[in-house]
């Protein structure tokens, strides 16, 4: 099977018209011009919407709708961006609050699903056990389903989870306390054993920080409203993990299958246990794959729409995707299109840049997942 991620020999650059008068020939001027024209035409169609939206976002005329086609912004200004950051929608929420919601949702879901997914992927990739095939196929089948296919039961089940705010506060304290104590203990033992490494310190400090953040949130939150799991970012996160976890397992298994078994065989001869192999060999080698899978999960979470639109009712929980839809079409009302344009570019920018950087790994992985059964 041809795998685009495999580096190809330098001699293999040959295409449709690659024959003719010996290798390494030049195109005639006419051919070159014709091909350039075709390529330019394609580039124009690709760039047209992008240039249009960029130009509209920089339009400083403060009009609600563009009345003519302007691909170079008249009276360029960044007012629209300022407006969007200050108050993107009719709700009293700033851009950063929306971005914060989207970020914690996306980051939480992708981190969690990759962490849980990589252990399962390791089991599927390296062990032979009863039920392996049926379990993996069921993961694959769930992957085929769009998230909306289980929307009704998830909505119904999560809607019934509701408890008083004091219970939530206690949950915050317990969860935050466990994390904080764990982090503090890790720090303490590092110092006690005088074994200070950058990785260990970072992990310990992150644990401690997140734990303290949870305790702080629990202590300062003041609501008398009952906590409804469905009507919160946690509920949306749960629902999203139900789709993100199978994806992470499937994708990571594809990558782990490409790690040569010889490394492990050597380790087994040296007496390594499956745990040691996992932590010392597989995990370090799979770091790029983990990053890519986490990023793909992040990207789908960052722009997740259907679940949050169905679940969330409080404007303070709204995400970027929901707000963008609020600025489009029938919901747009009096929102100027320059604001919509600025908003859509600000949503795209972070994920697009990372996508471009990771491009090579992403494409290889996507087709790999499709090939391996």
């Amino acid at each position, binding site marked *: 099977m041809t795998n685009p*991620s495999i580096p190809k020999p330098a001699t293999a650059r040959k295409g*449709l018209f690659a024959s003719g008068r010996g290798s390494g020939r030049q195109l005639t001027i006419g051919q070159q011009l014709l091909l350039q024209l075709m390529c330019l035409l394609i*580039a124009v169609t690709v760039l047209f919407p992008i240039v249009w939206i960029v130009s509209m976002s920089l339009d400083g005329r403060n009009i609600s*709708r563009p009345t003519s086609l302007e691909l170079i912004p008249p009276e360029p200004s960044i007012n629209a961006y300022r407006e969007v950051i200050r108050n993107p929608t009719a709700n009293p929420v700033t851009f950063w609050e929306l971005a914060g919601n989207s970020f914690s949702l996306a980051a939480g879901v992708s981190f969690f699903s990759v962490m849980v997914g990589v252990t399962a992927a390791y089991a599927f990739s390296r062990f032979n056990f009863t039920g392996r095939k049926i379990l993996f196929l069921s993961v694959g089948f769930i992957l085929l389903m769009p998230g909306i296919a289980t929307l009704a039961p998830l*909505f119904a089940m999560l809607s019934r989870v509701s408890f008083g705010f004091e219970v939530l506060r206690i949950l915050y304290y317990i969860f935050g306390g466990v994390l904080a104590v764990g982090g503090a203990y890790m720090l303490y033992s590092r110092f006690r054993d005088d074994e200070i490494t950058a990785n260990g310190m970072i992990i310990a400090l992150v644990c401690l920080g997140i734990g303290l953040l949870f305790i702080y949130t629990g202590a300062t939150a003041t609501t008398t409203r009952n906590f409804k799991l469905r009507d919160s970012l946690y509920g949306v996160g749960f629902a999203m993990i139900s789709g993100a976890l199978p994806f992470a397992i499937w994708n990571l298994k594809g990558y782990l299958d490409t790690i040569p078994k010889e490394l492990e065989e050597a380790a087994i001869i040296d007496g390594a246990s499956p745990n040691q192999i996992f932590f010392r060999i597989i995990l370090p080698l799979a770091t790029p794959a983990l990053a890519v899978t986490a990023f793909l999960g992040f990207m789908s979470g960052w722009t997740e729409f259907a679940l949050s639109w*169905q679940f969330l009712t409080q404007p303070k929980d709204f995400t970027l995707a929901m707000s*963008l839809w609020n600025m489009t079409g029938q919901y747009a009302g009096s929102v100027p*299109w320059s604001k919509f344009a600025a908003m859509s570019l600000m949503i795209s920018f972070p994920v697009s840049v990372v996508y471009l950087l990771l491009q090579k790994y992403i494409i290889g992985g996507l087709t790999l997942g499709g090939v391996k059964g």
Partner: protein
Amino acid sequence: MASVDRTIKRPGQIDEVSFWDRTKRARSAYLYLLPAIIIMSIITFTPILYQFYMSFTDFGARSLNPSPTNKAYLEPEWIGLENYRKIVTNEVGAKLPNFNFFRTLGFNLWWTFSNVIFHVSIGVVVAVILNIEGLRFKRLYRAIYILPMVLPQLVIATVWKNMFDGEYGAINQALKLGGGLFGIAPETFNIRWLQQIPDPIPGVPLPLSYFAMLITNIWLGWPFMTLVATGALQSIPKELYEAAEIDGATPLQQFWKITLPLLRPAMVPATILGIITTFNLFHIIYFISEGGPLGRTEILVTQAYKLINGNQLYGLGAAFSVFMFVILGLLSAATARVSRVAEAYDD
């Protein structure tokens, strides 16, 4: 516990490995699977089972919220196959007059087929052009062509929705500019892309919004196929072309006899991926045409979402999703079969 003296063997007895030792590897496999199994059984498999139960009930808004008088949930009533019957006979309620299950299914299949055909053919052609030796600015073009893949689908869909706006959209404005050069009156291009009800091509039962979304999705989809095809093209050894040339093959013959057959192993999985994602392409349909006009560009995912989101028909939505499970299962079985046939052909 009496200790057993293992040193004395009966004849024919082999070394007894205890069950515990024999299953050591399997146990650690299950241990690695455990977190995923626990989580998936709670938030993936349980909802799927609950979905089957819901599909046989009249689960609605009243079963979700506790009644104000006694704080109890009103349990949904068992109504057997009633939901399935309603879906097949299109009697889902007065609020959804445009619901038509088989038309939606048919449109969904046609939507998938027409899009993937364009994606694959344009993708391969562009990849071949970009692979021609001696073409200038290749790297620049490759960098530009990847942009549609990189942007989030949600943003692409909302931007194109505004582009197809009848009054202020860029498409009509560009057409007016272009038409002006040929002396065509600008009023000709007040095209209501997403709302127009009469079919643009007589005899073809597809509304104008389908073509608008087809354009959007072609724009969105071909760069992925180009990327996959480029990777495969670059691994075709050029000696094949040299040999073909010595035998007197024309460039076109080389394309059909060498390039295409060698592209197939890479393109088949990419095409399957494309079929599944296009079949479930929620964002484009829901954001651009919203299923309109008259629900004629609805696909299964958007219809399921509307049953639940707009109309709170949870039981009905669950039954609809069960249909989707079956249809997607059949679709993936069919694509897997086709791809196996294609692979067998290679040998």
